[in-house]
């Protein structure tokens, strides 16, 4: 069955609606192709040109593949795959001949709109996808409306109604569908391309790029009072290896048997639950001195997961801030004293000089911190570039830097004097949401600090940035003493209203994360435990799901079936007159469509003389309501009463 070309326009709009959130991520060649396909389709619709022949279409498909290869270097993977499907749906417009072609494009639209969830699962994108689904469904209506008698408004109305009616089943499935953990097949490498966060190494610029990002890194709920701001060191990764430019993790296979010793065993424990935004890495953030973690903990007290975290991830941990990690073996001593050969001679000389003067490691540490404090070091987000001897350059020349410079230089000086030391990266601080009971840690809280080995204390945290800008640690990044214009908009304190708004929106996001995005098999189990059902297994869940689906299917069926019969106020008369006619129909008397109410009444009286009075009054009320000016409720009541009591006799 051929389709009118004017019906292409809504489909074209549909594809663009689907693609709208994707556009910002598409490479220029792909955008160029999409723009030209759109113009071409418009020319076809307006009758200025015809659908291209098969040969041209094959050429265009070739152009699509080439543009993908030029832009991505491959046509496989999630981003190129999405672009490919998108361009294919545009190409499909060129060869749309039958209804099935169109339906295919619409189905492709349903599929493409889901690829947005690779990048964000925010409530906004959910709302947008909801609108797109309604629009795409209205396209289905266009192509099954054979006489083209529906208009845009009617179609949207039908579509909206149907989508709303599908919500009950969706809810049931969402809650009861057994969640399966983990990927069924390998996730393409680029599935995590858009994720931001602290990386697995520290080189100049890697952290201060994050400072300008307002994105949430994770949210934390404390069981009791949260610790003080100055104790909120969220450890991510420990970096022990330095090549003169970049701090990295040690490549050696991790010894996963923690030998944690605690100086104080019965100190106050801090219990907290973290909802980590996807960061595409395999580590979790925790406060210092982990006591309990559901995940593997290394000797360096890093919590590690088996899989990369590409989805919202929630976990609970317990830390003891008064304890100290006393795990150290010969290999670790060696590892944490290693320095690149032949670099930063001046710094090494300085370290040796200060160590000699200090006498012991604690005094030496203080004198290094003092060195940072008394010399004109500045805390700045835009430090100058450093030369080959980066540490020398920083300590003796530029003296401007950020936490990564201070922690790096500090660890270097420590190692140079024979004190085992390492860099820790993660986040420092966090803001409590005053409207809800949780803490927000943003990318802008990214931080780097140092840990040194002291024989009597074990691994001890030292934050050299605090020596330069103490308020950074005590009050957070906003109070670090930076010029305000350098800070991103969201960090600049502003009016009370905006402040309120910001936290309200974050509260919403938090609940959304907790109940929608973070709904996994664990949450599912928790939910049923809350309802008093312990240890529900997948088979039980599945059978419940089937039962609930059948029940809701029945209810939705009634809903769909009854909706045509809704008695709007205006139609009460027709509705009850219809009931009257149906009663007579059962008795064998059928009102012809051509018959007026009066003519029908005459026949009724003829066949059922005993019902004369009742039938006459029903006809009278009906006519009054329908054709008279008298639309009173009294009449309606009488009509309804009379119809209900009517029996054909």
């Amino acid at each position: 069955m051929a389709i009118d070309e004017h019906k292409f326009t809504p489909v074209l709009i549909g594809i663009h609606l689907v693609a709208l959130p994707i556009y910002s991520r598409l490479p220029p060649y792909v955008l160029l192709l999409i723009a030209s396909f759109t113009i071409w389709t418009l020319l076809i619709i307006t009758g200025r040109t015809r659908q291209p022949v098969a040969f041209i279409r094959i050429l265009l498909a070739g152009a699509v593949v080439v543009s993908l290869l030029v832009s991505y270097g491959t046509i496989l993977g999630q981003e190129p795959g999405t672009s490919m499907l998108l361009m294919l749906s545009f190409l499909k417009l060129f060869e749309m001949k039958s209804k099935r072609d169109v339906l295919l494009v619409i189905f492709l639209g349903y599929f493409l709109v889901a690829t947005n969830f690779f990048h964000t699962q925010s409530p906004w994108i959910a709302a947008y996808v909801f609108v797109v689904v309604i629009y795409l469904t209205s396209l289905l209506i266009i192509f099954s409306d054979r006489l083209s008698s529906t208009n845009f408004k009617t179609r949207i109305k039908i579509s909206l109604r149907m989508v709303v009616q599908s919500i009950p089943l969706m809810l049931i499935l969402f809650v009861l569908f057994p969640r399966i953990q983990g990927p069924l097949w390998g996730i393409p490498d680029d599935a995590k391309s858009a994720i931001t966060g602290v990386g697995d190494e520290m080189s100049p610029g890697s952290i201060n790029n994050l400072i300008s990002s307002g994105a949430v890194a994770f949210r934390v709920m404390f069981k009791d009072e949260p610790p003080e701001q100055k104790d909120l060191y969220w450890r991510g990764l420990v970096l022990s290896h330095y090549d003169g430019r970049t701090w990295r993790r040690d490549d050696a296979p991790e010894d996963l048997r923690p030998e944690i010793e605690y100086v104080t065993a019965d100190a106050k424990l801090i219990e907290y639950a973290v909802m980590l935004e996807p960061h595409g890495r395999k580590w979790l953030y925790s406060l210092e001195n982990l006591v309990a973690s559901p995940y593997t903990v290394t000797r360096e007290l890093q919590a590690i997961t088996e899989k990369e975290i590409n989805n919202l991830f929630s976990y609970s941990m317990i830390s003891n801030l008064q304890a100290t990690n006393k795990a150290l073996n010969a290999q670790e001593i060696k590892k944490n004293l290693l320095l690149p050969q032949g670099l930063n001679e001046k710094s090494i000389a300085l370290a040796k000089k200060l160590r000699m003067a200090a006498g012991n490691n604690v005094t030496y540490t203080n004198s290094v911190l003092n060195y940072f404090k008394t010399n004109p070091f500045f805390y700045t987000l835009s430090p100058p570039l450093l030369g080959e001897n980066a540490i020398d350059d920083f300590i003796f020349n530029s003296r401007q830097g950020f936490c990564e410079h201070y922690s790096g230089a500090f660890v270097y000086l420590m190692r140079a004097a024979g004190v085992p030391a390492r860099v820790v990266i993660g986040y420092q601080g966090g803001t409590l949401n005053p409207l809800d009971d949780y803490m927000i840690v943003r990318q802008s809280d990214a931080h780097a600090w140092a840990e040194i080995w002291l024989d009597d204390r074990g691994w001890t945290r030292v934050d050299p940035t605090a020596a330069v800008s103490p308020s950074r640690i005590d009050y957070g990044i906003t109070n670090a003493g930076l010029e305000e214009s350098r800070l991103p908009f969201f960090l600049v304190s502003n009016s009370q209203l905006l402040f309120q708004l910001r936290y309200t929106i974050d509260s919403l996001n938090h609940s959304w994360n907790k109940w929608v995005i973070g709904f996994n098999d664990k949450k599912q189990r928790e939910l049923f435990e809350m309802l008093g059902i312990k240890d529900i297994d997948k088979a039980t869940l599945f059978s419940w799901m089937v039962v609930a689906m059948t029940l809701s299917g029945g209810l939705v069926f009634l809903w769909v079936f009854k909706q045509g019969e809704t008695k709007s106020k205006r139609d009460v008369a027709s509705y009850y007159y219809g009931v009257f006619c149906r009663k007579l129909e059962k008795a064998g008397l059928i009102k012809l469509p051509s018959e007026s109410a009066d003519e029908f009444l005459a026949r009724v009286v003829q066949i059922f003389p005993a019902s004369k009075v009742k039938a006459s009054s029903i006809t009278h009320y009906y006519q009054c309501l329908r054709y008279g000016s008298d639309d009173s409720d009294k009449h309606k009541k009488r009509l309804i009463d009379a119809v209900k009591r009517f029996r054909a006799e």
Partner: protein
Amino acid sequence: MSYIFSLKSFFRLPDFTRKPVFKFIAKRIGPFKGTVILDRNRVYILPTKAGLIFLLLLLLLLLGSVNYNKSLGYVLTFILVGLGNVIMFATWKNLAGLRLRAGGCMPVFSGEKALFAVQLENPDAQTRYSIAVMYQGKEFEVVDVPAGAVSLAHFQADTTRRGILDAGRFRLNTEFPAGLFVAWTWIDLSMQCLVYPKPAPRTEMPVSISSEEGDQAMQGAGMEEYAGLRKYQSGDSWRRIAWKVVARTDELVTREYSGGRPQLQWIDWQTLPISGNEARLSAMTRLLIDAEAAGQVYGLRLPGVEIEPANGRTHYARCLKALALYGD
């Protein structure tokens, strides 16, 4: 999926073991007299090819959601599952509850197409869109039935012999609102069409008759003079309606003739020199048509039937009906 379960209950297969098939068919398809309400038992539904592709889409989306563990992926998948379910109900609802009545059927000559009309009444407050009428595997018309209204849908049947033609069962089909499911019903509303004998071609008419009776007819016609127009009365020959005037004024007007004495003609089974009953009936039909066209007064004699001479539409139809039903 819920709708597969539900499908079973909608798509009722005949229970061959317990009931004779014809009883099953008769209960659901008819033939019926009067109004038939399309209830649960009569509306069947199955996914279309597009519906199966939609199912495939749902599976892909579900697999993707599981693999990438995207909660909103699940939400989208499940809302589309729900949508499929609702669309199934809506498609079914587009037919179910419809009230059907046989419409009229104008008699035709054998060999012509019989046009049957079906009245579709929608008792609900919602329009039912795009209902197609199919007959003998062919689709004839697509109609909308607005809320509370009655629409007419037509289908055509070939006629091969005179007599009463039983339309038998026809099919109503709808894919609205999404094209993912097709709902249909088979129904027999006992619709009948009167089929007149096929008129014999003029060239095959016996010469004696065409010259003798034909001359008379021509004389009759020639002697009439046009006398003016009057309002159409039931029974007037359609050939005498002044169509040009009708087109201008929208009123049926008949041309009146005067002066001529209408010729009397008996169309008689006995006097026709033709062998074979059907051929004889065909020839008589031809004579009837020509006589009516010429505005003659004619009577009809069949073995056992005699229709007194008269003219006009009613008489013409009565004579043709007698020919059509001769021997039944």
